[in-house]
């Protein structure tokens, strides 16, 4: 007799595959409200005031903007304030390799807005502010259209929803920077405390949650915490949107359970040449050598011990013949230019690091200068008001680990055929101000 584990009760209407957030996505247009409502009931008060917060806590949902902070804990902290809170939907997505927030806003805007509305109800908030990068007109138009659809279908709504378009700067997505900008200041991080959960937009307790996080929240409210936990790992449940780019035939945003094998995911996206190093977690993540990339699962439990992290879920694949040193040099220069210019260690440290790294890459510095990079990594790490410099240092350290021998060869002036290969990873020009 064969023993079988009884099937968990299937949740009615819940997506059964590994595509959850993108289950309804067809083609490249947004799921209209009417069709969305056939699957998701209109957000309403979720039982008791904090029933949803308790549900989110139970679900184990973690923020998908990069920091993986427990969402329920954050909501609980916002709810403990005395004044009515404000909900900010963070769709700034300043990471050049990440496309998932814009994709979600373009394809499933109502799932994101449902999540925001549910969070607002649970917190007693009457105002939702959706922030999207100014340079993502498609996502902005999609959200604006979705908000108009919702107003037509429910003109009595007591929750106001507005869209703001943010300056194209990486650190605008840092929650204190975003709040400072919404309040009329420059999009630069501020001193903490206070954090936004204590004093945020107009001094109110403010919940700043990533676009994808809120979409998961909407599904947890609809299908329950055990459904949510049925994919993913125990400490990081659920699926994640993963932006795949680089030397792939099918670069795109994929959805997979957290803990999915990186190699399987790359196979799905069809590598064009032999797979070289893989950058996991975006520009503020870490390079992985091919053997590590072949073995690792996409979760912080496995990535953190090898110096990496899932971050915002961006994965870039270098072809085997590309030059990781040149790619890293370009990315470090971009990072140095993205500093908000406020903290001495970040401004000076990242400038020194990127300049010296570029000199080494071009054979214009002594191999012994590599020791300076290690020294500065120690000096800069943990010394900013925000975590921006720490992310840059994580990237630098992974580049030194994975391409250390190559960097030394570059410094000795040895020929590298990789330098003739066109740049693989995008380095957007720095433009626009801080407002």
């Amino acid at each position, binding site marked *: 007799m064969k023993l079988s584990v009884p099937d968990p009760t299937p949740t009615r209407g819940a997506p059964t595959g590994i595509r959850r957030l993108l289950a309804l996505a067809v083609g490249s247009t947004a799921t209209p409200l009417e069709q969305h409502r056939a699957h998701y009931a209109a957000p309403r008060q979720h039982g008791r005031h904090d029933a949803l917060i308790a549900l989110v806590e139970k679900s184990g949902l973690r923020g998908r903007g990069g920091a993986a902070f427990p969402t329920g804990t954050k909501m609980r902290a916002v709810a403990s304030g005395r004044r009515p809170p404000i909900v900010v939907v963070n769709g700034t997505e300043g990471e050049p390799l990440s496309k998932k927030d814009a994709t979600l806003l373009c394809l499933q805007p109502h799932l994101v807005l449902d999540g925001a509305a549910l969070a607002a109800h649970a917190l007693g908030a009457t105002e939702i502010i959706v922030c999207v990068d100014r340079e993502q007109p498609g996502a902005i138009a999609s959200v604006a259209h979705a908000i108009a659809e919702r107003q037509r279908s429910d003109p009595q709504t007591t929750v106001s929803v507005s869209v703001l378009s943010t300056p194209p700067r990486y650190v605008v997505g840092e929650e204190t920077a975003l709040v400072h900008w919404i309040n009329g200041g420059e999009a630069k*991080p*501020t*001193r903490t405390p206070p954090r936004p959960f204590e004093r945020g937009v107009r001094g109110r307790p403010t919940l700043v949650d990533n676009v994808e996080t809120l979409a998961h929240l909407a599904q947890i409210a609809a299908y329950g915490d055990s459904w949510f936990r049925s994919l993913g790992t125990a400490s990081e449940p659920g699926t994640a949107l993963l932006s795949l780019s680089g030397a792939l035939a099918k670069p795109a945003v994929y959805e997979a359970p957290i803990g999915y094998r990186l190699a399987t995911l790359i196979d799905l996206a069809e590598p064009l040449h032999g797979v070289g190093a893989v950058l996991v977690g975006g520009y503020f993540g870490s390079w992985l050598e091919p053997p590590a990339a072949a073995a690792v699962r996409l979760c912080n439990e496995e990535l953190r011990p090898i110096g990496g992290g899932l971050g915002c879920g961006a994965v870039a694949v270098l072809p085997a013949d590309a030059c990781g040193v040149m790619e890293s040099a370009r990315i470090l220069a971009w990072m140095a230019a993205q500093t908000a210019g*406020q*903290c*001495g*260690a*970040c401004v*000076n*440290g990242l400038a*020194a690091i990127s300049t010296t790294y570029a000199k080494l890459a071009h054979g214009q510095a002594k191999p012994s200068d590599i020791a300076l990079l290690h*020294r*500065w990594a120690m*000096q*800069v790490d943990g*010394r*900013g*008001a925000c975590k921006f410099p720490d992310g840059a240092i994580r990237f630098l350290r992974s580049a030194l680990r994975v391409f250390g021998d190559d960097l030394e060869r570059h410094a000795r002036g040895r020929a590298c055929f990789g330098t003739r290969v066109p740049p693989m990873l995008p380095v957007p020009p720095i433009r626009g101000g801080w407002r």
Partner: protein
Amino acid sequence: MSHRIVVDPIACVGHRLCADLFPERITLDDWGYPIIDNTPIRRDLLGHARRAIDACPTLALRLEKVVARDART
């Protein structure tokens, strides 16, 4: 009860006075900005710490109470 020094890295512009006045806990990085050793400060050093804090032209330093469990004095 013991204390440690905390710097506001946004307010700090690198005047370097603090490292001169309180080298026991403050050194400078390669660009002249303070690196704080946040080991709790012994009672006999508190005067030096306070002098460094008061000398900062941008008021970027403050003394923070350390909760009992990681106090070592």
